[in-house]
Every structure is written in structure tokens, then in C-alpha cells.
């Protein structure tokens, strides 16, 4: 896979000490600013209140920022009986959102996610959210044994999918690459905080993530892996929960739930996971993926096979979240290496 890159429009610097001002200015302007926060062992994105509860010390957040575009539960439509007639309301998403502190792999993940929802059929709420969301990525200085962005054609220096990408270049400075019009617009609104800068070589400031596997080889051979007997033995620990899918920035599956009575009701879109046993259960009782190894195989082959066929891209960005969160130690890297070994 080729290294994905975007076109950079402009370069700036921002004093790290001024982040507090920057955040407060955004908050004052009435926008919703999502920042990483910590709760025990969990890091997740939540609305900015105060610089003191923004978390900066993380390799990768436990929960991906995907809910900025695709929340765990969202209303698609609601109705209410009013004076004998039904009034139907469609959701409106007007508030501008800024996401701060996602990683370069996440920006690519969210790009994949919005392409999934917008390419063939333009999904109404995802389109509105996408239009209203600006992504400020923080390039990685550190990585752990579960990071594998470089194995899927990305790197801690990738800017694809970001509107602005910040890199800590020492001396209390962030180097800012402004990539899109949305990024430009946001910087222009806070121009006093940013100084002009020359293009620099970022490589020495970002983490050097070692290659874990060869994705070209994987894509080439993926069809041969479908019948491998390794899926069964490797997936024995898998418990069929939704943790891996729900923390993944590129998992897009959902379920529709209607909660209604004759007077009022809503139709809700909720996250779903292909690891759940009932995900593929038919009304007849037949289940085309009756056992967990079938479900695990589907997840891995979707990321590295089906999405290459359908959307011409991998749908795994190597963030490692599914590995870190799995209650049973399942590891997608281990699975790939094992398949490639044969």
C-alpha cells in the first residue's frame, strides 16, 4: 500500500502554553470541542471544560473519536401525536465540532468511515456531522507494541484525513500543518495564536513505528486464507463481545431500534458488531456465521480483504485499539502473522 498523503496548504507554529487560550476561545465561540480525557484506565473523547482535565499522556485513546461522526446511539427520526395529528421531526446537526488530539491513524479511520457512509448513498446525519467537524490531529511521539500504522501504509507523520496536524517540535512549540479549508478557517479565527513557519522535516520529531507485517503480501494472498484451519484455533479465546468493534475507528456496523408507543416514538441507530452471535441470525433461525471463528474471520477479512475489493482501501488503520481492549487477549497482528507463516 502506498503511503497516503494529503496536500498541505500552509505551515504555522503554536506555543504549547497557548493551547489553553486556544481551547477557551473555541469554547467561547460556541463550538463543541472534544478533547481526550482520562477515567482510570480509560481515555476517551469528551467536551472540553477545563485544560486541567485534558489528558495528554496517551499512546492512543482507548475509545476512538468515531462518535464525533457516528455516535453510539443517534436519533434518525422521531414522531409525536399532537392534537390528533402526527408531527415528524428529523434530526438537525448544526453545532460545529472540533476534535482535538486524535492520532494520524484515526484521521484516516474517520475518512474511511465517512466514505463508507457517504460514497454510495449520502447518509444524512453523517454528512451533516462531517461537514461540521474539524479534526486537529496530534502526531505521535510514542508508540506501543500494539501500534502498526506503518504496516498498513500509514505513519505517525501521515496527514491524510486531518484538517490540521500538530507535531510537538520541542522548545514548547507545536508545528502546525494546515491541510484543508476547514483547517484554514479555524486557524484564521484564532490567528493571533499562530505564527507563520517554514516547512520542516517532521520525521525526526515523530515516533518510528516498526513494521509488523507486509500488507501487500497480505492483500495478494488474502483469498487463500479463507479456508485456513488457523481461524478456529486462533479464535478460541474470543468471547464474541462488541469491544473490538466499538473502539475501532473504522467499524461502521449498526442496528436500528424503534422505541415507540402510539403517542410518540423514535427510531435510533445504534452501534452493532459482527462479533455478536445474533449479528447474522436470520428470522428463520438460520445463522450463516454460526460459530465465533466464522465471526472473527469475517472481521479480519473485512479489514484486509472485502474493503479492498469494495472500496479500494484497507479498513484497518493500525491503531491497535482492538488489541488493547480485548478482554481475552485476541490480537489481529498475531492472526495475520500466523496466516502469513503457512
Amino acid at each position, binding site marked *: 500500500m502506498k503511503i497516503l498523503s494529503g496536500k498541505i496548504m500552509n505551515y504555522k507554529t503554536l506555543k504549547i502554553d497557548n493551547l489553553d487560550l486556544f481551547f477557551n476561545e473555541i469554547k467561547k465561540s460556541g463550538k463543541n470541542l472534544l478533547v481526550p480525557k482520562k477515567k482510570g484506565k480509560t481515555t476517551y473523547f469528551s467536551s472540553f471544560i477545563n485544560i486541567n482535565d485534558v489528558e495528554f499522556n496517551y499512546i492512543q485513546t482507548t475509545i476512538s473519536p468515531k462518535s464525533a461522526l457516528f455516535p453510539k446511539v443517534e436519533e434518525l427520526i422521531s414522531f409525536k401525536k399532537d392534537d390528533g395529528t402526527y408531527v415528524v421531526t428529523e434530526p438537525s446537526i448544526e453545532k460545529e465540532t472540533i476534535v482535538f488530539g486524535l492520532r494520524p491513524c484515526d484521521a484516516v479511520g474517520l475518512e474511511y468511515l465517512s466514505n463508507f457512509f457517504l460514497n454510495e448513498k449520502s447518509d444524512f446525519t453523517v454528512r451533516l456531522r462531517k461537514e461540521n467537524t474539524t479534526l486537529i490531529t496530534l502526531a505521535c511521539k510514542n508508540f506501543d507494541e500494539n501500534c502498526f500504522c506503518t504496516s498498513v501504509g500509514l505513519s505517525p507523520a501521515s496527514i491524510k484525513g486531518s484538517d490540521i496536524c500538530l507535531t510537538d517540535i520541542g522548545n514548547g512549540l507545536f508545528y502546525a500543518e494546515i491541510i484543508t479549508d476547514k483547517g484554514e478557517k479555524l486557524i484564521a479565527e484564532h490567528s493571533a495564536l499562530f505564527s507563520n513557519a517554514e516547512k520542516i522535516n517532521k520525521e525526526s520529531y515523530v515516533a518510528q513505528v516498526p513494521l509488523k507485517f507486509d500488507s501487500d503480501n497480505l492483500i495478494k494472498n488474502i483469498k487463500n486464507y479463507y479456508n485456513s484451519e488457523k481461524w478456529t484455533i486462533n479464535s478460541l479465546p474470543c*468471547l464474541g*463481545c*462488541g469491544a473490538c468493534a*466499538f473502539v475501532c475507528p473504522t467499524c461502521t456496523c449498526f442496528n436500528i431500534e424503534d422505541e415507540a408507543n402510539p403517542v410518540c416514538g423514535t427510531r435510533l441507530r445504534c452501534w452493532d458488531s459482527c462479533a455478536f452471535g445474533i449479528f447474522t441470525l436470520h428470522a428463520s433461525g438460520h445463522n450463516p456465521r454460526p460459530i465465533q471463528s466464522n465471526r472473527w474471520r469475517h472481521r479480519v477479512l473485512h479489514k484486509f480483504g472485502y474493503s479492498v475489493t469494495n472500496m479500494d482501501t484497507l479498513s484497518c488503520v493500525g491503531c491497535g485499539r482492538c488489541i488493547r481492549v480485548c478482554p481475552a487477549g485476541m490480537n489481529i497482528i498475531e492472526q495475520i502473522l500466523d496466516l502469513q507463516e503457512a
Partner: protein
Amino acid sequence: MQELNNKIAELLTNNLVSIFISYKKGLNGKIKPAFFTKPNEVYENYFGDEAQQNLAVYVHKPEVKKYSKVGILANIFALKALLQLYAENQIKDNYLTIVTVNQDNKVIVFADFNEIESYIAQHQIEKNTNKQKEINELLSLSREKRWEFWVEQLSSCIKCYACRAICPMCYCSKCTVELNQPQWISVPAHSLGNFEWHIMRMMHLACRCINCQECSRVCPMNIPLHLLTTKINSDMEEEFGQIAGMKTTLDFALNTFKVDDYENFIR
């Protein structure tokens, strides 16, 4: 641990088990469940403090059930879970070979569940005073403050069901929370749905939960589910004198009808 490895290899070699569930180190160094089917794989076996997961959960897994005879390394929580499952008629006779390592590092292979019952009776788990303190602090708050606490905690639940999946006592093939045509309880992961889900789960686990606290360990949102399980367990003990995972026979409070029950409404 050599003695344990030898025992596992011996069980596999002599076809006393066709698969043995234990732990090993994953590629990233994390300890994870291992499923040994051949004696020459057993060198990978890990034994130590990092082995946390309650392996009893795997006895429900259809792929594991396909093996005719299953061996399992059980820590004290897994033993309690297996005993409770046995009492609930979830374990066939002569299907499991249960192995533990006691405090003197001696490998024990249990002959039957009666032996497990007496082993558990002799190896009481000390009450975790930190957790009790957390609960007492919560109980000292007003009703409104406690409500606020749980609203905040539970509204963050994403309904990934990792807590249910890891729980050895959650083995229903169809969970109430998944029934949505019509809904039994609210399915979406909004506040109401999350409250109904956790209340329902705790009701179903009252006097069945063996308090291994695996649900709390695995929650991606760090929701303190152990506060619920510990409290429900101590209530069950105080009100009904019952502790789950202690006996081969079944007698749990919320499911057993007694003709001489002192509550009138039930008669």
C-alpha cells in the same frame, strides 16, 4: 512452572483430556488464554500473577464443547464459578478435568465437585477492604448523590457487552437485552437503556455472581461494576445467608421457592 506443565502434558498424552485451557504469553507480552491440544505445545504455558482471566467462561463456548474431554486450570474464582455452574446443571459429569495450584505451589487435580466444594471451604477469599471502603463511601452519600453517581457512570456504557461475555455466570444463549421485537428492556446504549441493562444483569446474577470482578476489569469505559457485584453479594449474604460458588447443590435466594417462607406475598 514445571510440575504444572508436566501434569498438563501428561493429561494430554494419556488422552485424559483432548484440550487443556490455561494461559500463555501473547505476542505483545500480554497474558492470554491458551488452548493446548498437543503435549508439545505445553512449553508455552504461563503460570503467574498476570494470569487474571477467569477461564471458567470457556466451558460454555460451543467450540470448546466440541472437545470430548476438557481440562482447565482454575484459580480460586474459576473454581467457584465452576462449582456454581455445576450446581446450576451446566456441566456434564466426567467432562471436565479441573486442575489448580494451591498456595504451596502444589498441583491438585480434583476428583469431583465435592472435593472442589471442600477446597473452596478451606480457601476463603479475603474481603477486599479497599473495595468495601469504596462501597461504604458511596453508601454514605445521599440517595440523590448516589443517583447522580450512577447516572454519570452508566451513561457512558457503550453496550459492548464485554462484561457479559467475560462473565462465567452469564451463559444464556439469548440475553433479555437482545430481545427487541418487541423489546423486553430498552436496547440502545442511552441512559435509560444502560440503567435497565445493568439492573437486569445484577438481578439475574444475585446469588449467582461469584465476585471474580472480571466484568469490572474488562469494561472499556472503566465503569465500576465491582461496586454493584460486591454490594449485591454482601446483601445476599446478610439477607439470605447465601454465598454463590460454595456448594454442589442449588439453593439460591431469588429462585428457590420455600413453603415456609416468612414473607406472606409469596405464599
